[in-house]
């Protein structure tokens, strides 16, 4: 409970400090941001459309592999704590688990999921 309160306090202080840093800064007598000033910077030319779009995410297949490894982490945290007690058995178990996931990486590599397709 005490930790939670401390983290919440740090959250409030950090967010507050950084927001204040941005809000209080800047010219007090500066004119407001005008339309030409607000146009996105692409080197002096003017874009035809807004930048927000249905962006083509090229790596979404990679993220599936990533999720598999993140699940593995759930298992690994407690495993690290009991490793020394369990000894060689824990090592073999984790070795088997990682071997299976490695097959996933090799398969994904063969399918070209790390290329920017």
């Amino acid at each position, binding site marked *: 409970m005490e930790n939670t309160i401390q983290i919440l306090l*740090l959250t409030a202080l950090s967010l507050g*400090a950084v927001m204040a840093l*941005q809000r209080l800064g800047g010219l007090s007598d500066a004119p407001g941001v005008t339309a030409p000033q607000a146009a996105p910077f692409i080197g002096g030319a003017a874009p035809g459309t807004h930048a*927000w779009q249905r962006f083509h995410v090229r790596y979404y297949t990679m993220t599936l592999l990533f999720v598999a490894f993140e699940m593995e982490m759930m298992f*690994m945290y407690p495993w690290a704590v009991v490793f020394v007690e369990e000894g060689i058995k824990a090592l073999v178990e984790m070795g088997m688990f*990682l071997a299976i996931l490695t097959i996933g990486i090799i398969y994904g590599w063969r399918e070209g999921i790390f290329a920017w397709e």
Partner: protein
Amino acid sequence: MSLIVGLPALLALLLIGLWAAAALDTAIGRLIVGRPVGMAATDPLRAVVADYLRQRTDTEAPDHLNWLLAPGYYFLLAVVGLALVPFAPDQSLIALDTSVVLWGAAEAVVVVAVFLHGWSPNAPFPLIGAYRYVAIGLPVMLLSMFVLIAASIPAQSLDLRAVVESQRGLWNVIRQPLGLPLFLAVVMSLTLRGPFDYADSADLAGGTSAEDGGPRWIAWQTARAAMLVAACAIAATAFLGGYLGPVLPGWLWLSLKTLAVMVAVVLLTHLVPRMPVAQMLTLIWIVLLPIAFLDLLIAGLGAL
């Protein structure tokens, strides 16, 4: 430890760390160019004050709230990381017995903070930087998890305080020699630097920060430097024995080791080029991740 003592200490450490990070970056950059170091200690301060006195610009129809908050998220994650670092036996601001897990979570959320920072301005370069960073930021987190779990094995605990104590005999950097080099890659990715800077890079005219002017620019760069301090302090704790050391007080040892890691990171930033994303993605999954497995194996066999 109580916040009344801890918070000012954390703040002091953070401010000194921020200044050291900026000065180091400037000084090492100049040394590599072959120019005199000059006023490297104060030049970053001048630049900060100058930017602070300038107009804060906006873009067309941005996501105002997230643009304002994204540097705050990033800064917060750095502060939480620093608060977990023990600076004397059993002394850290947040006394959590699963601090490795909390730091891992903070690392993962960095991807969200950087993405929001690039998404918010509604401009092409920040947007491309934001999406691209996710592709690299995610798998780099795996490296971090593996090497930090390897560091927790001899401690039989997920508490950074226990991780330091477990290094009384031998530091992890010697016991698990692959851990620290891999973690340096993680630090560069967390702080958007050099070979792992896929968010704020030169090929995108500054990427997610291309539209940041004046106070916005300072806020983001401050958060980035704070993350460098935090991640280097974690590296010093997990691999270089944290506060352990003879004669000098523990907090000074921790600071010196943090500074040493920072020098290494800044040097790598300047000396290693960034490869295209597809090559980096392959490198992380096919080369670096197996090396992380090996690190885990070495740590496991060593602990038996």
